[in-house]
């Protein structure tokens, strides 16, 4: 380790408590070391800082876009290699997504993926069996239809499926149907977004809003309350699961994998940010030591978390593998795939433009195939 005794870290996260705890424990273990923390409001500010003459040693971002930019960060794989046992300990699914062009530019943080959480009470009341692993989209729709209730005016008092409207959240269903939005190298959406598996997955999703009416349409009046109230099946990310665990509701909610799609692929998406070491940092060894401590060595960070640990040992030490809800999320990390937004900045930037078109398909009945074929312009 170098003789440097100070580290500058920039983070895009608004809640600093976890980072401040890590700073305190690291400084205690390494007397004389001082870590200064600065917040950035967004990726643009982090990017500007990295390019400046006073670049921080470490940057932590809520997304992956700055980690895709060449030359900004050091490759952490050599550090991983030289840390005994770490390579085997890191979750292979997460590493598959995080490593690009044979390099690891950041250690994943703020990791989340979606599964289906179901509210047992609503199933029991309706006398419907709980969903089982390996269920199909059709079975899910049948279940959701039985669990959607509307009053005399047609306003839903309970929805079968709690799901938003977002191109990224629909992507797991696209993947599971064998489709992808963009090419593996991210250079084009042509030949990907406009292909049948994508269109078919969207048709099934749009039918769930328009034909089966089991998902709340954008702007639709509702008396179903919040997501944890009148929704039987919930497309729940780790943060929803985190709330279930935090409030001790594990007996009220079950968790099951996403349904099988006709394409038959077992895949899911993953959200994550990262913390990486600036290529300009003169304190790489110390920075790596702190990163390791902050991200990999503190099970206490997952006591009340909404995110997933990225190593097997951390999953065990934090109690995730013993928890019935978290255990399923950890398992699912094996099948995650890189999403369009990781692979293509152009696709990522077009997110809300695409979402507007999805809303048009749901609310106005815009032709699904024609609309989606036009998405090649976003990739």
């Amino acid at each position, binding site marked *: 380790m170098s003789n440097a005794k100070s580290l500058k870290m920039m983070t895009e996260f608004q809640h600093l408590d976890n980072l401040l705890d890590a700073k305190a424990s690291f400084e205690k273990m390494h007397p004389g070391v001082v870590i200064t923390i600065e917040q950035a409001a*967004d990726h643009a500010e982090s990017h500007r800082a990295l390019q400046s003459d006073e670049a921080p040693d470490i940057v932590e971002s809520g997304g992956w876009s700055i980690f895709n930019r060449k030359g900004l960060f050091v490759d952490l794989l050599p550090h991983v290699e030289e840390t005994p046992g770490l390579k085997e300990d890191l979750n292979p699914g997460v590493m598959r997504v995080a490593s690009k062009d044979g390099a690891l530019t950041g250690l994943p943080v703020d990791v989340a993926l979606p599964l289906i959480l179901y509210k047992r009470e609503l199933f029991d009341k309706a006398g419907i069996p709980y969903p089982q692993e390996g269920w199909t989209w059709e079975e899910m729709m049948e279940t959701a239809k039985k669990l959607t209730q509307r009053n005399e005016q047609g306003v839903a008092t309970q929805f079968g499926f709690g799901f938003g409207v977002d191109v990224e959240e629909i992507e797991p269903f696209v993947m599971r149907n064998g489709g992808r939005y963009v090419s593996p190298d991210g250079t084009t959406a042509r030949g990907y977004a*406009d292909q049948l598996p994508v269109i078919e997955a969207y048709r099934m999703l749009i039918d769930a809003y328009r034909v089966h009416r089991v998902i709340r349409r954008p702007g639709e009046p509702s008396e179903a309350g919040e997501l944890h109230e009148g929704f039987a099946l919930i497309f729940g990310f780790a943060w929803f699961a985190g709330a279930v665990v935090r409030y001790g509701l594990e007996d009220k909610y079950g968790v099951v994998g996403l349904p099988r799609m006709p394409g038959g692929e077992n895949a899911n998406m993953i959200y994550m940010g990262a913390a990486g070491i600036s290529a300009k940092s003169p304190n790489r060894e110390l920075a790596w030591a702190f990163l390791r401590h902050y991200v990999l060595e503190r099970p206490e960070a997952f006591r009340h978390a909404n995110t997933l640990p990225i190593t097997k040992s951390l999953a065990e030490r934090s109690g995730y593998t013993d928890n019935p809800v978290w255990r399923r999320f950890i398992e699912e990390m094996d099948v995650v795939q890189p999403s369009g937004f990781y692979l293509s900045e152009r696709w990522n930037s077009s997110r809300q433009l695409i979402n507007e078109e999805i809303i048009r398909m749901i609310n106005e009945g815009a032709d699904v195939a024609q609309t989606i074929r036009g998405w090649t312009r976003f990739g």
Partner: protein
Amino acid sequence: MRDGNGLDPDVANNAEEAKESADLGTELAERARAGDTEAFGELIERHRGRAKGWAERMTGDPHLADDIVQDALIRAFMHIGSLQEANRFLPWLHRIVRNQANMRLRRGGPHRREKPFASFEARERDGGSVDWDNLDSILDHLTSSAGQAAMKEDDPAEHLMRKEMYETIHSVLHCLTKKERAIFEAYFFKQLSPDEIAAMYGMTTGSIYTYIHRSRQKLRQEQIRVSLGLLPEKGGAVLARHKMLELAEWPAHASVPTTMVDRLGHMLATMGDSRDMAELMGLSGFAFRMQISEKTTFADGIYMFDWRETLISFARDLGYEAALVCGQLSDFPVPLLGAVEKFPVVLPIEEAVLPFIRQTIDSGRPVLYFDTSAARPFVHEWSLIFGYDDERRVVHLTDVMCPEGKTLSYEDVADNPIRFLAALTRQADRDQTAFLPGPRDTRRRRLAEKSVRFAVSFAKNRSAYRPMTSYLSYATGLAAYDTWIGHLRRGPGSPPNRYGMGHLAHAYSRTKSCAAAYLRTVPFEGEAMRFALLASEAYEQAAEALRELEELVPFIKTAELMQADLCERCAGLLEQARTFEASAIGYLEKTITYLEKGTSQ
């Protein structure tokens, strides 16, 4: 909707309707040519179906036609500034579609390997797969195949290929300056290394690389121009122009904290239409806006509104038409995502912005420009571009922290991750009947009533702008105080952002003062005016509490963490300000009641 431009008589049911549609089409094309992206979007909506029809007839393949139209529209968008006559938009678009279709057909249709237009970085090292429509591909082929050329001297196919290659390059080389051309030719034709060229010209190797890089960029743009059948642009030095406007005096006391409104006021003053700035703040509603991020005390809430809609409607209230150029670059992290999330994704090409800047400045009007490189402690602010210089390749623009102004290179302007430029044209100049429906006093009163209603509605969180990006949310109006105070009282483990605190206090203390000043001038009478004045007083007190807050957390660039006692003192001042502003809103509700009574009597 039917097409305009009078080119489509077969679908026009009657002559009058056809003329009206043609006029509208021409007007849209004129606005689009001036760089108005909204107008371009509308134009495209009108003509997309027709363009697809052309492409489909040429190719017989609907999917390929979609791709062709897409590429053609990108090219049309980039070069609309070069359209000579606005009423010839359709033939011009037709030519672009035809050229694109021809290129695609030459390439071999939909099953031939595709390359997205934006992938300029792509490299073709395989001499057999050179893409003749892509200059980079040609240049790469040129550099990689030169060594093998001697072996293939007798190959007729190779000979033809090289002939076409040289023709393509020579057709665009004229866009380079003399020196750029010499270096370019030395590198690509004579196959000299950058080191050798540097030695020849007594320059550093690094600068040779820069020359080669810049030349490639210029050639790419010129190649697109040629593919459009446009007149070639002469070498930069020949047509190089520059122009600098003299901005109106703008002393600090005239300035307001909301930089978009401030720059608009400065712009209008420069155009000979000086306005009272408190009135502009009131009429635009910005005197009454306050938004706080739900994340922490980041200052991005200041910028969260619909930029396009706000600017267009505010300009109309002032008697102006706004022309906009907007977009977000895909390859750069974009700040203020919540505000720009629905901007079209654009390429960092100078031609997409500089014609708009030149044309506006040449007509004596400054350009409103969103500057993402504002001098500290500001991060990004609106500014005014008031000059350009083609030779130095810079624009001159204002910056709050640089009283003399500053310059940005053309590359910096094209590379700005947020593209937002606007120019105003006086409506009365265009159509004398379109504006001022009633007497001036009546109109002033109506606008004042509109802004007071806006103030109440905004305070009660009914007019908030909500980004679609789900992880970005902002508390609005009186509720914003509660969120702000909440951030300050989250405890020592999770302190608020100090830098943003300073910015928020700086901006909103002045905003509330503007609200107070504006309400003193509203043209109401009787009880309505009395309550407006009471509201003004309450806003002044809210402003005072926020000024004290600003003294505690001055607006400076800092990474310090706020201690618990400072957080608590700030929270106390915000509670005071909230109480005063809640009173002000109560008085404004009474103002509205009396205004309505007055109307009904």
